[in-house]
């Protein structure tokens, strides 16, 4: 019942891409050997996304999560800046629902949101009052209790916590740092799969266009997520706005998450195809509108609500423009994605 735009992939004229010999080395010796041995090079758009968007994005998140995990003590005032830094970093890559982020439910565990049934608070309450947790044990628990949403509830509690949150804060931060390291590690081989799409032995991406399609699909899906969820949930209805349902609301990140998500997807667009003037302009319009809304709480007023609704329309326009402009330019169709469905 929760609606999602459906998307499918198209025919398309294969685009001739310049070789990417020089860049393959970053994938490690195996990728280098493959690239040297095999015929079809990765499309330039794919390598730019892998090497200048995804891998550095995950590296930055891993570092920020590690910094958060190394802080001694549990004073929220001390932890909050590092928490926000890690959250900011995740916003740069949160839209990449493929490969290592999908494996072992990592993207769900790093930022479980939305949580329409309130499962996070429920699961976390049990952990707070239970036996102390090791990071290994933390990894076995519900994704709803973990990650950035879990930390947000502990660092910005809405009521009195039933027990000392210190051990759980530490275990959650350690768990987050571990996942950051794993993402960085696993994006080396996964990035190589994208870079060697269509080459013999690559069973994941049978043609170069399949890698491009996978990344292009993340762009459209990411924009739908911003419009339908990050904006749509707080926007709710004119009669009953729900700013409290915004992503990161307790930590005061409602508008910041929207703006950062738009910026991250603009960067993805630029890496996929720098020659996308209409899409980039649509992004700039949306980002300007987002910056014009100081706080998500302003939507409690009709004027503020309308501003957010206009932003939602601008994000949907950016999505439609991106599909119409980049699809033909890249020679790929939209593929299915993990966010399809309810």
């Amino acid at each position, binding site marked *: *019942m929760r609606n999602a735009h459906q998307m499918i992939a*198209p025919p398309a004229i294969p685009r001739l891409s310049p070789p990417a010999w020089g860049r393959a080395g970053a994938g490690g010796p195996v990728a280098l050997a493959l690239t040297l041995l095999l015929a079809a090079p990765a499309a330039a758009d794919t390598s730019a996304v892998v090497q200048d968007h995804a891998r550095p994005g995950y590296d930055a998140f891993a570092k920020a999560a590690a910094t958060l995990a190394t802080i001694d003590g549990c004073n929220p005032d001390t932890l909050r800046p590092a928490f926000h830094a890690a959250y900011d970093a995740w916003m740069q890559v949160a839209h990449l629902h493929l490969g290592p982020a999908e494996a072992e439910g990592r993207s769900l565990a790093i930022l479980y949101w939305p949580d*329409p*049934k309130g499962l996070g608070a429920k699961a976390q309450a049990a952990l707070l009052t239970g036996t102390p947790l090791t990071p290994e044990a933390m990894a076995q628990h519900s994704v709803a209790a973990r990650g950035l949403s879990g930390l947000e509830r502990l660092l910005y509690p809405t009521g009195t916590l039933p027990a000392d949150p210190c051990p759980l804060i530490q275990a959650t931060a350690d768990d987050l740092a571990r996942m950051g390291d794993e993402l960085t590690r696993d994006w080396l081989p996964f990035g190589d799969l994208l870079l060697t799409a269509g080459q013999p032995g690559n069973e994941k991406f049978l043609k170069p266009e*399949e890698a491009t399609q996978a990344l292009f699909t993340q762009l459209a899906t990411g924009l739908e997520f911003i419009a339908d969820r990050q904006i749509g949930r707080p926007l709710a209805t004119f009669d009953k706005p729900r700013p409290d349902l915004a992503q990161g609301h307790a930590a005061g990140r409602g508008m910041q998450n929207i703006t950062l998500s738009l910026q991250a997807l603009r960067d993805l667009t630029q890496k996929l195809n720098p020659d996308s003037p209409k899409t980039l302009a649509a992004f700039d319009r949306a980002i300007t509108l987002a910056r014009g809304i100081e706080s998500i709480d302003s939507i409690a007023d009709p004027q503020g609500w309308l501003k957010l609704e206009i932003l939602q329309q601008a994000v949907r326009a950016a999505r439609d423009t991106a599909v119409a402009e980049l699809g033909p330019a890249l020679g790929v169709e939209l593929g*299915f994605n993990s966010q399809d469905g309810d």
Partner: protein
Amino acid sequence: MRLLSTLLLTAVAAPALAATPEEVTTHYADLALAGYQDSLTTAQALQRAVAALIATPSDETLAAAKTAWLAARVPYQQTEAFRFGNPIVDDWEGRVNAWPLDEGLIDYVSAGYGNEENQLATLNVVATPTFTLSGNEIDATAITPALIAETLHEADGIEANVASGYHAIEFLLWGQDLNGTEPGAGARPFTDFATGDACTGGNCDRRAAYLQAATDLLVADLTEMVDNWDTDGPARAAVTTDPQAGLLAMLTGMGSLSYGELAGERTKLGLMLNDPEEEHDCFSDNTHNSHFYDGLGIRNVYLGSYTRTDGSVLAGPSLADLVAAAEPGVHTQLKAELDASVAALQALKDAGDSGRTFDTLIAPGNAEGEALIMAAVNALVTQTASIDRAVTALGLSKVDFEGSDSLDSPEAVFQ
């Protein structure tokens, strides 16, 4: 019928006799019609069983109603492949199969139940004849299909306020499953529908009225969907008027159900949350069957074949024919992957049938359960990539289908 089916199946096996997109989409609409007709007749049987339960509450009549509900799920779940890609179905679906629900909206629940995001999560309409909703006084003294559909369902704009459909009925028949990730389903006693002093749970007459109204509503909604696929129905027209658009809708239905919905939302997410309420049929512990018939429905669409509830087989020109003619390698791989996902879902079904139901498999630390579940998830994700390839092989374009208004006139999207 059997002979005809055999002949048609033979034709499927020989893709050299390539079908046309017109034939394939028309047959697809026939499959959908048959699926919704079977869903309707089994829902009507449920309606009769519910009436018998209310007239004469007993262990036997309650068990018979549960059996009828389980039987109704078999054809319905196979129709889920018709949903994504056809807005006429997708916009309607939330009325009949919405999930997960805050069941405390409907009836009594255990202590400690609640949802911080939903103030109506413990409303308990069965026990509350009048209440305030979004500032309006609601008179719920008579529980009718209209009250459920127009006032209660998605009340306050909250999607967890599921008041109608299979899962609302499931809750009223089984009750909450309080066994967590241990074996056992909901255990509502038949006396929850008893009259006079025998009544348990309070307000048995209102509970019975709710169950009857929700079942009547389900039958009405399914009747509407049967009509939508009939000769002049809009759902049929949506996939047959432009056969290329119809083929795209068929593959969209297969791909979106495989990946985002069944593999993701309904299976992997439950495992990652270790939460037994995050199972599709959480009151009845029937999730293994619902998932299996979803998977079967996806393969049905590709092969153009559906085994009806009476055992007859409806088979005809299929997507498989078209893909095999266009790109044999894609067809061979996709067919093998569809068989593999049905086999993986069969393993989940076998586990469930032997008592290892989905909610026990998602218990933290159940490695065998995780392996069974992830095998199904991975098979569904794998076949989705080949469904993408089939879209490309048939030269279908979502981008073209959407149109490029937004490029030609960027302001058009603001209209």
